[in-house]
């Protein structure tokens, strides 16, 4: 066993994740390196889900019976847990959505329908970056097309970082909103939040941060980030699918209009007009994903128990080791930073002329699960002149032995297509 400084006790942690014991393709133990797509779920989360449905299931709010009160306490309790997890000043700033995409679409639609001074409209500008996930590109393209606002973006340097050399030309007095990813899902890059936020604040633009690949892997402090909105999703951080979060500054949530209308988001309704509940409920129309939110609360407890700083240190050690080992593979080119500095645990690469689909297929046959394709970040592939990449991504249960398995697997791929 390879021992690296900073590693967690993965032997103990892996016992919490039943799926990691699965074997595939005639008895090969699964090597799960697709964590940037979704994480596995610990028993502690699965048990909570089960218990919720077996003992407490009911719709939330307004119910006067025991089950409704328990379900509400569980759902709202999860909000408290998430608020503490991201150091939100108030629990009312935590909006539950179905995923990060919905969170980002929600912000874009709030701003499209907002009154001044927030309104994104003709003559104003929206700024994103070339390394965004499609979920932080398309909502802004839609807003731009619908309002006439101009969409601008930061380009990328050859080594997979944001090119901020022209920051004063990209973010200008016309900029209404700057939305960018904290950790890239394809390049792994951790972006320099402070510099972007400082410039956005100078011109009075709102800042939206996509923290989907950050929240699972490092301590997230929305106050330290100084953003106006932060979006992330539960399923990448040990929670079930179907639950996401949008954190927003309270005064903004008070001022901005709702997007989806329906049950739960109202104060009073007549046939002519309605008034709305205060945030967060103003933005949570309809029956929410109750069990999923409670599952997210359990995931937050689980991660907090291990410690986000410990998880980050573990992944940093694994990433450093993985980058070093991968660079030993002939013809392998890492797309993104080639050191572990300011870098998350998702590593994309190409392997000679062998198409990522073929790489992934041959790895799968050995039980190794990676993701292949453009990772919903096609502009990054275009930028680096490649059709797609193979991406290995690690989490708190990943081990150096799994990195070794990947490297051995890639050798097998090269032989197969050589």
């Amino acid at each position, binding site marked *: 066993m390879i021992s690296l400084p900073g590693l967690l006790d993965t032997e103990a942690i892996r016992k919490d994740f039943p799926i990691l014991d699965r074997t595939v393709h005639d008895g090969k133990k699964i090597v799960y390196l697709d964590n940037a797509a979704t994480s596995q779920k610990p028993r502690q989360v699965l048990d909570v889900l089960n218990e919720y449905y077996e003992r407490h299931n009911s719709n939330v709010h307004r119910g006067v019976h025991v089950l409704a009160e328990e379900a509400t306490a569980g759902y709202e309790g999860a909000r408290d847990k998430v608020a503490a997890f991201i150091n939100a000043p108030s629990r009312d700033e935590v909006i539950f959505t179905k995923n990060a995409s919905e969170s980002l679409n929600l912000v874009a639609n709030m701003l499209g329908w907002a009154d001044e001074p927030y309104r994104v409209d003709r003559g104003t500008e929206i700024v994103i970056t070339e390394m965004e996930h499609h979920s932080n590109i398309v909502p802004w393209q839609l807003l731009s097309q619908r309002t006439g606002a101009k969409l601008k973006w930061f380009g990328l340097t050859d080594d997979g970082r944001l090119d901020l050399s022209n920051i004063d030309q990209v973010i200008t007095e016309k900029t209404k909103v700057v939305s960018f990813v904290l950790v890239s899902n394809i390049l792994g890059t951790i972006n320099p939040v402070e510099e972007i936020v400082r410039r956005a604040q100078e011109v009075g633009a709102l800042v939206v941060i996509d923290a989907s690949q950050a929240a699972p892997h490092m301590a997230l402090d929305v106050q330290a980030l100084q953003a106006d909105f932060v979006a992330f999703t539960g399923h990448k951080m040990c929670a079930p699918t179907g639950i996401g979060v949008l954190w927003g500054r309270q005064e903004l949530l008070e001022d901005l209009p709702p997007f989806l209308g329906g049950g739960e988001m109202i104060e009073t309704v007549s046939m002519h007009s309605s008034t709305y509940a205060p945030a967060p409920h103003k933005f949570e129309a309809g029956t929410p994903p109750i069990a999923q939110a409670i599952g997210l609360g359990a995931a937050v407890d689980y991660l907090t128990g291990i410690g986000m700083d410990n998880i980050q240190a573990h992944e940093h050690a694994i990433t450093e080791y993985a980058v070093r080992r991968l660079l030993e593979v002939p013809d392998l080119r890492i797309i993104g930073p080639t050191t572990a500095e300011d870098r998350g645990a998702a590593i994309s690469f190409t392997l000679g002329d062998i198409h990522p689909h073929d790489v992934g297929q041959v790895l799968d046959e050995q039980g190794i699960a990676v993701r292949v394709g453009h990772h919903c970040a096609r502009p990054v592939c275009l930028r680096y002149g490649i*059709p797609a990449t193979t991406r290995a991504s690690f989490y708190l249960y990943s081990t150096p032995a799994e990195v070794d398995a990947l490297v051995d697997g890639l050798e097998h791929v090269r032989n197969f297509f050589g």
Partner: protein
Amino acid sequence: MKLDSMYQEVILDHYKHPQGRGLRDGDAEVHHTNPTCGDEITLRVKLDGGRVEDVSYEGQGCSISQASASVLHELLVGKELAEASKVQELFLALMQSKGQLTPDDAMEEVLEDAVAFAGVSKYPARVKCALLSWMAWKDATAQALSVKETA
């Protein structure tokens, strides 16, 4: 090993030595992509009356998608359109069979090298790769015919 059922020698051979690759003169051109993985193909069809005179293509993608385009070229060029369409339909049926169709002699006679893709049909994520060029050919042929009709 299961992998060999997908990556038949014939397929790897077409992948490494593609037939008819490169764009040449055509009556219609289409560009098809597989959005899930980034495979792309630009394909041109040239018709000579009711006969497929040429199919030329450029693209990037995995071994399955590239080999499939090469096999298509080999199989369809020179055939009468009606016959080529039958080959296309049979290939489509084979690829959509989820591994349930075992090619018999009659099928092999029509599909020739293309029967090697039978194993791919067991992998749902890869069926689209194998079909990319065939769908492009169908589309381009329809366009070439409508151009001719209009003319």
